[in-house]
């Protein structure tokens, strides 16, 4: 697509901190996080529940501000304490519980973005949406409402609805949570297919370590709240990946490395929880 040109979508997170309600309850969600996601990289963020992963996503998306540091997208400052660029199509979010409009059909949901932006005519958007549905074998569902579909299909439709806008970054907040293991493998292959067809920067939050390693180029492990960067593991497995890769020696080593780091944090989180309960 953009062959030869440098693909956009590099995110740079510089010393970012976030304190909710600094004057009152004072909840420190993130402390001095610094890391980079290269353009076209599939970054997976893992860490204990409630550690501040979604906080970081909200900051990048422009849903919420930060209390220290800066976030850059392709060198442009998108969030700092003084400055915040509102949400836009460059940074598409796929929500944890799904946010397809229940009153719009599959086709209307996918074409909504390009039409309201005025980037495509309705006809063009519909043609493009059909093409995308074809590619992932979801033809025939165009006129269904989301609630007539399984949650796995809803997730896929929502992802297509994000990708049709050709965002610089796609951010997914535990998108496959609640799906069973079989449905998850289908989703992983689906995402893999789309990602390989046109690589773009992914910011993917999950609890599932297999998901993290199977999908990611880079696994960012965060600490218990306040979230700091615990460790960054580069996943040097070749693309495209198939599920059999999970039996390879390299995969198992990587998983052990990630697991050790996550386990340490999970224990801390558990103990902190015990303390809070006491």
């Amino acid at each position, binding site marked *: 697509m953009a062959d030869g040109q440098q693909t956009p979508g590099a995110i740079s997170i510089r010393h970012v901190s976030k304190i909710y309600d600094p004057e009152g309850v004072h909840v420190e969600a993130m402390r001095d996080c610094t890391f980079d996601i290269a353009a076209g990289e599939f970054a997976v963020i893992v860490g204990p529940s409630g550690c501040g992963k979604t906080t970081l996503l909200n900051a990048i*998306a422009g*849903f919420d501000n930060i209390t220290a540091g800066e976030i850059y997208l392709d060198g442009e400052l998108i969030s700092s304490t003084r400055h915040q660029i*509102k*949400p*836009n*199509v460059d*940074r*598409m*979010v796929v*929500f944890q*519980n799904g*946010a397809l*409009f*229940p*009153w*719009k059909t599959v086709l209307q949901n996918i074409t*909504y*973005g390009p039409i*309201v*932006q005025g980037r495509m005519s309705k006809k063009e958007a519909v043609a493009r949406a059909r093409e995308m549905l074809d590619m992932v074998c979801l033809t025939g569902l165009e006129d269904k*409402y*989301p*609630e*007539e579909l399984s949650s796995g299909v809803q997730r896929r439709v929502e992802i297509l*609805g*994000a990708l049709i*806008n050709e965002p610089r970054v796609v951010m997914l907040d535990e998108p496959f949570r609640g799906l069973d293991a079989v449905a998850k493998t289908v989703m992983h292959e689906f995402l893999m297919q789309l990602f390989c067809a046109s690589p773009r920067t992914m910011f993917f939050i999950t609890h599932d370590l297999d998901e993290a390693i199977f999908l990611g180029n880079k696994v960012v492990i965060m600490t218990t709240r306040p979230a700091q960067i615990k460790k960054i593991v580069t996943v040097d497995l070749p693309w495209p990946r198939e599920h059999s890769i999970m039996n390879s020696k390299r995969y198992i080593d990587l998983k052990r490395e990630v697991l050790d780091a996550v386990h340490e944090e999970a224990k801390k989180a558990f103990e902190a929880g015990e303390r809070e309960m006491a």
Partner: protein
Amino acid sequence: MPGTMKSVSSFSQLLKALTGIALFLIFWEVSTAVLHLPRFSLLPNPVSVVKEWFSFTPVSGRSIFTADYYLDIAYSVGRVMIAFSLATVLGVSLGLMMGWNRIFYDFTFPLVEIFRPMPPLSWIPLAVLILPGVEVSVVFVTFIAAFFATVLNTLLGVFSIDKNYFLRARCLGSKPIHIFTNVVVPGALPFIFTGLQIAMGIAWLSLVAGEIIAGQRGLGYAIYEGYSLFQNDQVVYYMLTLGILGYISSAAIRAVGRRLMAWESRRRGI
């Protein structure tokens, strides 16, 4: 086949509904005309009510074969329709604006909450005083409570919308007007229609009260007249007429709602 299934189930539903009505009529007839139970003996029995209702020469001068009966219906239906339409247009607009704009909400919500509980009948003295003619007053009284019910339900409808729909709409590059038409309005629609059903009920209720006190013509007025002249049959079949009209108007709202909210009805399988 789903089609056959549906018609079988709706047939058995109809059968049950008719049985329920028949049982009620039997109970009514037995307790009044047959057993003359204490207190019940004063009630007109269903046979005499139906006789009078369908009489060519009604004692009260009103039956389904007289023009007066239909004139009463026309007056009441006309008043309800005008009041309900106004309540819908104004109530939905106000509710959407309140739900959509925080500042507007802060200004208006306390006012709405003070005016809303005022019983419609308490408006009669002021309505008669300032509005031109009795007719407008009756319509106003019919309108006022229905209006507040619509405002409140529309407002709750906007508040009920999942926050993520707004965030997703913003990510997708929506301008405020797009969010209003694509998220706020359809998102609030289920609550709006619940509100409209309630509002329709309230409109009939207020109408009859208004007609009894301040009206000329109309079903409520005819009930009051029947009461004054001790025409209890007339009272009862006018009540039944009100019941039937109320049922039809609710069903009409539901039907419109189903058409506008295809996504909801498909989910519920209706």
